[in-house]
């Protein structure tokens, strides 16, 4: 037999298309982390005293922690003194509309396929854009504010809505939660803030686009979404970064709060630079995302399409506190070359009649390692809690790995937890069958992968499903041959 996995391998060797750097004046502080760094960040952002105190408390707690070692990923030690904690494109002046944004910046986002102007305006998606450490612009702000929806950068929220930020920041992910959450709490520089008032169904998709541009800069964004009683919001984040040989750290925290009968749908299309085909460079994506179904009958749904990053470590979770609340997690994680992903979710059932559903689709190619790690916990009070988990892995070639680590803790006898897992492989037989019908190997793999991921892709808002599908196709380009 000739090179058995040859065809497959060549079809997944991809070129990262977002690897360019924007040449723009950037306000950068010196590398390194200390109380002074934090004071400087807080000062640059003109923050109130309480915010600085909160940051310093987090920093001092972080100093006592050690980096977690349990994820199924390997990387050299991170030198936290070798990172730039604040980098902001100049001018820092607050923009009222996107038309005032630096043309170079707008061009950058055009190149990324995110037209901040017309296209989005037509499709009715409000966008907040975060480049390196700061939010550059938020669109549709005015229209949204007319119905009481607040959608702005978190920096702005700290200035304009301190009472909301104070009340909710750290309420779902405490600063002491874990190593990277503590670090983020100390040094976060920007991110998005959404507040949907009682009874309002947000009429458009809210979306934040994260871009790392500056070399050696870490991105530590913080997102906070609050849905008041009987409100609804669908939110989407997208991410890219330039191609660089050094690894860059991205340690974000996302907190969601859903009150009674509120629903939050949070979608992520993550395409950070994954490193080159030999595993050089790429983003370390160490993220803490958690939602709290605080009120009865509330619902939080996470959908993620993860194709980028050298290492991904994230477990978007839901705490099902309210009775009858619902948590969902839909994930497609694609790893190629030397990428590593350890991702999954936690569904913590506390209230009665709470339900959760987990659908995880892992696709591994090249030499990559793809792990699903999920916890389903039903507390003592969680009468009639239900969980259904389905974890499917698809292997492209025979040098990659797929792993599943389900953890189940049930303390209430009436709770029912179901788990199903499958592993399949795109075989040479399948490729030959497709090719014999005139479908080349690359198209065949895309067809099979799309079929495999369909259930999750269908959860994405329409506007992004097409983009996500294209992204998946681009990431796989060359993975067969």
């Amino acid at each position, binding site marked *: *037999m*000739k*090179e*058995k996995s*040859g*065809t497959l391998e060549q079809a997944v060797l991809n070129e990262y298309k977002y690897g360019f750097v924007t040449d723009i004046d950037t306000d950068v502080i010196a590398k390194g982390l200390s109380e002074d760094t934090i004071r400087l960040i807080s000062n640059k952002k003109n923050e109130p005293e309480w915010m600085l105190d909160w940051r310093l408390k987090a920093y001092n707690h972080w100093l006592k922690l050690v980096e977690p070692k349990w994820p199924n990923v390997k990387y050299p030690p991170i030198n936290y003194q070798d990172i730039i904690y604040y980098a902001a494109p100049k001018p820092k002046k607050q923009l009222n509309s996107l038309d005032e944004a630096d043309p170079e910046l707008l061009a950058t986002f055009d190149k990324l396929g995110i037209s901040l102007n017309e296209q989005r305006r037509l499709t009715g998606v409000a966008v907040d854009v975060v480049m390196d450490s700061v939010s550059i612009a938020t669109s549709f702000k005015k229209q949204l504010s007319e119905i009481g929806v607040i959608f702005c950068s978190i920096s702005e929220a700290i200035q304009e809505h301190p009472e909301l930020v104070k009340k909710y920041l750290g309420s779902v992910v405490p600063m002491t939660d874990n190593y990277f959450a503590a670090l983020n709490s100390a040094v976060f520089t920007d991110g998005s803030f959404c507040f949907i008032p009682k009874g309002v169904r947000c009429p458009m998709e809210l979306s934040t686009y994260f871009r790392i541009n500056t070399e050696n800069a870490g991105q530590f964004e913080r997102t906070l979404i609050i849905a008041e009683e009987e409100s609804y919001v669908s939110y989407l984040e997208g991410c890219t970064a330039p191609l660089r040989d050094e690894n860059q750290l991205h340690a974000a925290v996302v907190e969601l709060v859903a009150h009674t009968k509120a629903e939050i749908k949070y979608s992520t299309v993550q395409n950070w630079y994954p490193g080159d085909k030999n595993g050089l460079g790429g983003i370390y994506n160490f993220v803490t995302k958690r939602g709290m179904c605080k009120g009865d009958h509330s619902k939080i749904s996470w959908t993620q399409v993860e194709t980028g990053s050298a290492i991904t470590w994230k477990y978007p979770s839901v705490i099902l506190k309210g009775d009858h609340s619902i948590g969902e997690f839909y994930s497609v994680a694609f790893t190629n070359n030397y990428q590593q992903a350890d991702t999954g979710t936690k569904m913590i059932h506390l209230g009665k009649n709470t339900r959760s559903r987990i659908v995880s689709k892992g696709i591994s190619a090249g030499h990559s390692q793809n792990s699903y790690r999920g916890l389903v916990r039903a507390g003592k009070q969680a009468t009639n809690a239900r969980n259904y988990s389905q974890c499917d892995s698809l292997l492209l070639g025979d040098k990659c790995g797929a792993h599943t680590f389900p953890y189940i803790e049930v303390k209430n006898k009436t709770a029912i937890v179901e788990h199903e897992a499958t592993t*399949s492989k795109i*075989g*040479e*037989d*399948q490729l*030959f*069958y*497709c*090719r*014999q*019908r*005139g*479908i*080349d*190997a690359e*198209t065949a793999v895309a*067809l*099979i992968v*799309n*079929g*495999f991921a*369909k259930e999750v892709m269908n959860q994405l808002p329409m506007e992004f499903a097409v983009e996500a599908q294209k992204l998946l196709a681009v990431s796989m380009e060359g993975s067969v041959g």
Partner: protein
Amino acid sequence: MLSVKNIHANIDGREILKGINLDIKPGEVHAIMGPNGSGKSTLASVLAGRDEYEVTEGNVSFLGKDLLGLSTEDRAREGLFLAFQYPVEIPGVSTTNFIKAAVNEKRKYLGQEPLDAVSFLKMMKEKMALVEIDQRLLSRSINEGFSGGEKKRNEVFQMAMLEPKLAIMDETDSGLDIDALRIVAKGINKLRNPDRAVLLITHYQRLLDYIQPDYVHVLYNGRIVKSGTKELALELEEKGYDFITDEVDLTADQ
């Protein structure tokens, strides 16, 4: 249309085809018979372009082109179709989507516009009626959980959709009930025209009752050891392969 000259092919260093010669002209139907393991499917795979098989000698021309120089997918797009002896299951990909991709890839190759949804549907309906295939099968993942007979029928359906110049049917009749056999034969007969040719690989005379072959070949131990008309098939049915293979083995021993 197809001219196979002295083809030798190996798998894992073992020679399976030991000098095959075969000429098929437009409009003809050829049947290949032969004992298990003689190399019939290997020949089909080599013609279709399966990578695992290494062609060590010989050449093949197909519609005037050097077949072995074409990629697997281009051979298909040029009009070579293989109905698999063991059709492959592809979870998650609906049969309809799969066929649509196949039809449009071929059209692209031929410089034609992709079929619009309406025309595609119309074509599907027509061919579905022809091979009497259940619509519900087509919305399911391709071949996944299909019964043996359903898989075979699906192969014929795909053939009908792709309208190949040369259809190689590898034991498409095996595992079919009498009705299915008749329907499958009808599908194949319908495709017959002066521009097209069919290569039937089969173990049974009964298929040849429905599809009259112009020539019958016996493949044994990697070689075509006897060729004849449809009477040869009848003789094989009656006497078994021994009357030919014994003779071949005898000559080989000498």
